[in-house]
């Protein structure tokens, strides 16, 4: 097709929102204010693991401007419902803590006040009666028999269809290791990463004359937020009117529905507009992060570079609660063996709870750390077998028609073509046998 018949593809188009951005006319949620608007600030756990035995608001109530406090008893369905909506249970995170806290920054009670200053002052005067419990911060420590247990079901791992981890079994790795001429092992890990958007997470809930609540929010997932908020507050969906807009950076950090339910509840209880915007400290310390991962590889490799067996054991640090991590682990398990044709694969991918802030969505979460570990391992294999890093990838590259370890037939492979194009772009001259390869036409084995 001639590109001259296209009016967008291949052409540079100015951004529709660009003039707003360079003139400052773009409105972000925290730029909106209403008369008589209240500010909501959260009382958060100062410790990583404790029994919550009581909350004393008596000094907070004396602060000029204090309007009211909200605890779990005010929340109609005090369950964080995000995984319910994608069909993953169990419901295990409270909107506001009831009898336990499991990470530093966990929300315990909301304070609504006339001004931000009075809300902060009142929060500082709330007295918590906490009985600290032993905490665990490492995924493998959390699976040891003597580890403090975070979950009511008695373990620190998510249960996948009756199993302690997400498992993939393909071929026979032990047989592969016996045949292999090299056994190459290593461990890779990633740290938690905070999205740190320039604009912190926030919303405004405003009661309207017709009884509905308008919620202005910088969520990345407007309808997800509508559903979750309605379920938590046990109101019909049409009672809520969600208004999204320009998001000042999200990167997955504004997918969790964290601020809207409690701000909307506060607006319903006070019949006044309520603003709830994270401080920078809350964004860094209490919002979800990209979870940490630890990934062990054991590969059986032949002298010609073929990987004939791959055994992987990985641990995702979900932090104290599920959020999106059980789902991320499933994606991870499907991808971590890589875009390679390996006849024997064994994967145990664990979703583990620790007393750290919950991990959740961030740019390819689950898969990004897998790719990091996997490609480090491919380089290590090339080094130990004595092959070029390009060669090791072409030799093992999957092609259309191959079966992936999780029993999916490859239909959209482009690895070979991407590597060929990358080699050309960096001026790396590939041997003819790799130049002539294709994802579609397999050479006779």
């Amino acid at each position: 097709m001639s590109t001259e018949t296209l009016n967008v593809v291949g052409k540079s188009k100015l951004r529709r929102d660009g003039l707003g951005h360079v003139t400052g006319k773009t409105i972000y949620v925290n730029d909106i204010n209403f008369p008589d608007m209240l500010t909501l600030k959260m009382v958060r756990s100062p410790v990583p693991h404790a029994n919550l035995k009581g909350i004393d608001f008596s000094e907070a109530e004396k602060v000029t401007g204090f309007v009211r406090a909200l605890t779990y008893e005010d929340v109609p369905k005090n369950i964080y419902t995000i995984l319910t909506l994608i069909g993953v249970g169990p419901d295990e995170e409270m909107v506001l803590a009831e009898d336990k806290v499991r990470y530093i920054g966990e929300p315990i009670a909301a304070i609504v006040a006339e001004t931000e200053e009075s809300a902060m002052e009142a929060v500082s005067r709330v007295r918590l009666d906490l009985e600290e419990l032993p905490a665990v911060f490492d995924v493998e420590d959390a699976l040891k028999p003597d580890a403090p247990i975070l979950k009511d079901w008695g373990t620190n791992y998510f249960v996948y269809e009756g199993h302690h981890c997400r498992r993939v079994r393909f071929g026979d790795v032990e047989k592969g290791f016996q045949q292999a001429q090299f056994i190459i092992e290593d461990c890779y890990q990633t740290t938690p990463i905070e999205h740190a958007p320039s604009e912190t997470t926030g919303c405004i809930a405003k009661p309207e004359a017709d009884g509905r609540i308008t919620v202005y929010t910088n969520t990345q997932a407007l309808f997800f937020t509508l559903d979750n908020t309605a379920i938590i507050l046990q109101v019909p969906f049409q009672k809520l009117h969600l208004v999204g807009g320009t998001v000042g950076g999200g990167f997955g950090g504004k997918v969790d529905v964290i601020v809207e339910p409690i701000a909307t509840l506060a607006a319903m209880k006070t019949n006044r507009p309520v603003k709830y915007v994270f401080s920078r400290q809350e964004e860094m310390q209490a919002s979800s992060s990209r979870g940490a991962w630890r990934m062990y590889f054991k590969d059986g490799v032949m002298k010609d570079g073929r990987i004939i067996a791959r055994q992987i054991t990985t641990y995702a640090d979900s932090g104290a609660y599920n959020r999106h991590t059980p789902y991320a682990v499933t994606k991870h398990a499907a991808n971590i063996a890589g875009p390679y044709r390996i006849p024997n694969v064994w994967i145990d991918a664990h979703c583990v709870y620790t007393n750290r802030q919950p991990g959740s969505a961030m740019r390819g979460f689950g898969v990004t750390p897998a790719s990091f570990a996997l490609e480090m391992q491919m380089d290590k294999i090339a080094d130990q077998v004595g092959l070029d890093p390009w060669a090791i990838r072409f030799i093992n590259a999957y092609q259309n028609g191959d079966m992936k370890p999780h029993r999916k037939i490859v239909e959209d492979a482009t690895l070979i073509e991407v590597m060929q194009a990358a080699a050309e772009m960096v001026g790396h001259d590939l041997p003819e046998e790799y130049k002539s390869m294709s994802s579609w036409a397999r050479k006779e084995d």
Partner: protein
Amino acid sequence: MQAKIINLTLNGKNIDVMVSPMTTLQVLLRENLGYTATKIGCRQGSCGSCTVLINGEPMMSCLLPVEDVAGQDVVTLEGLMVDGELHAIQETFFETFAIQCGYCTPGMIMVSKALLDKNPYPSREEVINALAGNYCRCTGYEPIIQAVIESAKRMNSVGN
């Protein structure tokens, strides 16, 4: 403590404002006067989203008590357009895609203006140094650096 009347110049207009002691310039601009181009990123002087010009110098308005700018010349992003025309820096940021989510953009443009007003021919290093106090989390630093260099060219070619 009682509120005080403070006189200052904002985007070329001489105004009197009444503020409580220790009210920051950021709060005055955004909440009292409705000039919301000046953003809130961290409120601790780290991110540069709230940068305005005080007598031509870039300053973070989140750390600046209004009393400290009494009698001085304050310019926000809203004050950059002249007769409805974009300033060359605004035009360049827009046309060269030096923007993504837009949240850091006001601060980036204000520090760029301060730089180019004083130094019409900055080196790449000088541009990077000028932008060093401003965070972009969509990590579009390179297009921003390029936009400032291009802005300098455009401003010099029209003789201002």
